[in-house]
C-alpha cells in the first residue's frame, strides 16, 4: 500500500530534510554513533580525548585497519571472507623489511639508505601481496574451495612464512623514507595541509557540480539549490575543520630544539611547527576515493555488487565470476601489503606479531560499517568509519584506564550489537 505513490505520474514527494539532501540515514546513524563515542570519552577523560594530539593519534592508528577494510568490503560483498589479512600483512611486512635491510644491500649491493630502496621494497611488497591474494582467489574461484577454509589455512601459513623469512627476528630500523608512511614521522606540515585541504574542497565542490549538471542534462529530478549549498557547506566545514585540528597539533618544543641542535642551528624565539596531515592519512584518503570510484563507477565494481546480489544472475549476464574472484582477492592482497607499509613504518621495524588479530578488526570494521555478510551490500566510507569507531572505542577505553581484557569484551559486544541494530534497521526500512 505504501508503494502506491510510485504509480502516480510524478516523482514521489521528498519526505524530510535528509531525504532532500539525499544523505543515507545509515551513514548518518554511524556518524552519530561515532560522535557519541567521542563525546562520552571526552567527558570521561576530562577533555583529553578530543585534543588535537589525540585526534592525530587516532587517525594514524586507524589507517592500517581501514586500508584493509576497504578491500574486505569487496570480499564480503561477494559472499566470501578473508581470515588471512593479518597474516598476509605480516608476510608482506617481512618481505619488505628483508628487502630493504638485507636482500638489496647484501645481494644487490644497494647500500642501506640508498634513495631507491624504499620504493623497490614497497614494489616488492605490493607484488607479493597481489600474487598471494590472487592465489587465494584462484583456490576459491576456480577450485571452489570455500574462502573460509582457504583463508583460515592462509592465516596459519602466512603468519609462519613471515617467521621463516625473518628467522623469527625483529627487523629494523627501517629505511628513513619508508618510515614516513607510518604517521608521526611523515606529515605535511601546516602549509602543505592547507593546500591539500583546499584542493580537496575544490574537488568536492566540482564533484557536486558535475553530478548536478549530469542529472540536469538527462532531465532527472535534482535537489533544490539551497540543499546543494547546505551540503557543500557541511562538506567544506568538515574538510577544513579536519585540517585545522591536525594543524593545531604542534611538534613539542623539545623535539624542535633537538632538531635544530642536530643541524647546528639556534632555534628562533617562539618558533612553532605543526604536524598537519600525516602522509599515511593522506594515503588512506586517496585510497578511499579510488576504492569508492572502483565500487561505484567501474565495471569491476558493478560486477562485484551484482555477483554479491545474485551470483547466478551475474553468471547469466556473461560476467566471469571466477576471474572476478581472483581479482577481488588479488586486490585484497595488495591492500594488505599497503597496510603492511603503514603498520611497519609506524613501528619503525618489522616484528613477528605485526598484524596479529587484524583479520578480526578488519572484518569487524567492514561489518560495523554496514557490509552485509549475506552479500551485495557495503560501502567503502562505511568500512572506514567502522574502523574509526572501533579504534576510538579501544583508545578511549585505554585512556580511561579500562583493562585490556575488558576492552576486548566491549569491542566484541559492540560488533554483535552493531549487526543486530543493522538487521533491525533493515527490517524496519524494508531495505535489502
Amino acid at each position, binding site marked *: 500500500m505504501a*508503494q502506491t505513490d*510510485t*504509480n*502516480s505520474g510524478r*516523482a514521489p514527494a521528498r519526505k524530510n530534510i535528509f531525504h532532500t539532501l539525499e544523505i543515507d540515514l545509515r551513514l548518518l546513524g554511524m556518524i552519530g554513533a561515532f560522535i557519541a563515542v567521542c563525546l562520552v570519552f571526552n567527558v570521561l577523560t576530562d577533555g583529553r580525548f578530543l585534543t588535537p594530539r589525540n585526534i592525530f593519534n587516532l587517525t594514524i592508528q586507524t589507517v592500517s585497519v581501514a586500508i584493509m577494510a576497504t578491500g574486505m568490503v569487496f570480499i564480503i560483498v561477494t559472499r566470501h571472507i578473508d581470515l588471512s589479512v593479518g597474516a598476509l600483512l605480516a608476510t608482506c611486512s617481512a618481505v619488505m623489511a628483508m628487502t630493504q635491510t638485507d636482500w638489496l644491500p647484501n645481494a644487490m649491493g644497494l647500500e642501506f639508505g640508498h634513495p631507491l630502496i624504499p620504493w623497490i621494497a614497497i614494489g616488492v611488497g605490493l607484488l607479493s601481496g597481489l600474487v598471494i591474494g590472487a592465489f587465494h582467489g584462484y583456490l576459491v574461484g576456480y577450485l571452489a574451495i570455500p574462502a573460509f577454509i582457504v583463508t583460515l589455512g592462509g592465516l596459519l601459513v602466512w603468519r609462519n612464512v613471515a617467521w621463516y623469512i625473518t628467522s623469527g627476528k625483529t627487523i629494523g630500523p627501517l629505511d628513513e623514507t619508508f618510515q614516513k608512511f607510518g604517521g608521526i614521522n611523515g606529515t605535511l606540515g601546516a602549509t602543505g595541509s592547507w593546500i591539500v585541504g583546499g584542493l580537496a574542497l575544490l574537488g568536492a565542490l566540482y564533484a557536486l557540480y558535475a553530478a548536478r549538471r*549530469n*542529472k540536469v*542534462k*538527462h*532531465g*532527472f529530478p535534482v535537489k533544490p539549490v539551497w540543499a546543494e549549498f547546505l551540503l557543500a557547506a557541511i562538506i567544506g566545514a568538515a574538510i577544513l575543520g579536519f585540517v585545522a585540528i591536525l594543524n593545531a597539533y604542534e611538534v613539542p618544543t623539545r623535539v624542535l630544539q633537538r632538531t635544530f641542535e642536530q643541524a647546528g642551528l639556534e632555534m628562533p624565539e617562539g618558533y612553532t611547527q605543526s604536524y598537519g596531515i600525516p602522509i599515511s592519512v593522506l594515503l588512506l584518503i586517496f585510497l578511499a576515493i579510488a576504492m569508492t*570510484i572502483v565500487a*561505484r*563507477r*567501474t*565495471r569491476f*565494481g*558493478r*560486477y562485484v*555488487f*551484482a*555477483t*554479491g*546480489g*545474485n551470483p*547466478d*544472475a*551475474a*553468471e*547469466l*549476464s*556473461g*560476467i*566471469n565470476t571466477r576471474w572476478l574472484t581472483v581479482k577481488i582477492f588479488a586486490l585484497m592482497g595488495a591492500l594488505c601489503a599497503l597496510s603492511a607499509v603503514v603498520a611497519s613504518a609506524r613501528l619503525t621495524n618489522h616484528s613477528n606479531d605485526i598484524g596479529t588479530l587484524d583479520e578480526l578488526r578488519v572484518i569487524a570494521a567492514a561489518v560495523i560499517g554496514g557490509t552485509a555478510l549475506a552479500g*551485495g*551490500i557495503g560501502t567503502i566510507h562505511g568500512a572506514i568509519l567502522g574502523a574509526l569507531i572501533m579504534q576510538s572505542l579501544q583508545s578511549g577505553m585505554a585512556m580511561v584506564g579500562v583493562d585490556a581484557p575488558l576492552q576486548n569484551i566491549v569491542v566484541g559486544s559492540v560488533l554483535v550489537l552493531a549487526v543486530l541494530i543493522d538487521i533491525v534497521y533493515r527490517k524496519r526500512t*524494508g*531495505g*535489502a
Partner: protein
Amino acid sequence: MAQVQKQGVTPLVDMRDICISFGGVHAVDHVSVDLYPGEVVGLLGHNGAGKSTLIKILSGAYQADSGEIYVRGEKATITNPRDARALKIETIYQTLALADNLDAASNLFLGRELVTPLGLVDDDAMEAETRKIMAKLNPNFKKFNDPVSALSGGQRQSVAIARAVYFDAQILIMDEPTAALGPHETQMVSELIEQLKAQGIGIFLISHDIHDVMKLCDRASVMKNGQLVGTVDVDDVTDDDLLGMIILGKKPGAAAD
C-alpha cells in the same frame, strides 16, 4: 504454412539431437528443435519436462553433453552467456536472473554497461535509456532508483523483458515471461511478441498457457521427461491435441500412422 515458410530459408536456430544429463537424470534427451525468422515457436511440457534446461543450452548457461547448434546456418559453439549474446540471442529467464541489490538500469545493462569516455560506468545515461524503453514497455514503471528487490513481481518481470528486448535481439528466448504479470501487462507482452515477430525476430516461447500458445505461436514443440514428443503446426491442431501431447506424450494421429 510453416512448411512453405521453411523452403529456401535458413533457420535462425537449429538445435540438433541435444542431450544433457545431471547426475543420471536425462534432463534433455536427444531433442531437436528449430526456429525461423519472424516465427514464434512454443515450448510446452509439464513441470520438469526439460524446457528451461533446453533453452539454457542455447543461451549459454549450460553446455550440452552432445548435439549441435546451428545459428543462421552456421555451426555455433556457445560455451557461456557472452557467446550467446554475441550471436544476438537474448533470454528472459524463468528466474528472471536479476541482481536484487541493483536498480533497474544496472540490471538492464549488466555485463554491457554504457561507459563515459574515461571508461567509467555512466549511470545517468543508462537510467535515461532505461526510462525510454520502460516508457514503451510498461509506462507505469516509476521505480528507477530503487533496488529491484523493492519491485513487485510484475515490475521485475518487465525489467527482465526490457533487458532482452533492448539489445536488438534476433533470437529471443522467453521462459514463462508472463508468469507474474497481471492481465493488462500480459496483454502488452502479447502485443510485444506480435510486434517483434513482425520485425523478423524469432522467438522461443515457453508457456504453460495453451490458450496463449494457440494464439501467439506458429508452431509448438512438446517435451515430456526430457524427450521431444513432437513439433506441430498450431493451425493444424486443437487445444485438446496439445493437451494430449503434454499429458500422454502422444502426437495427434499417431495411432493412425
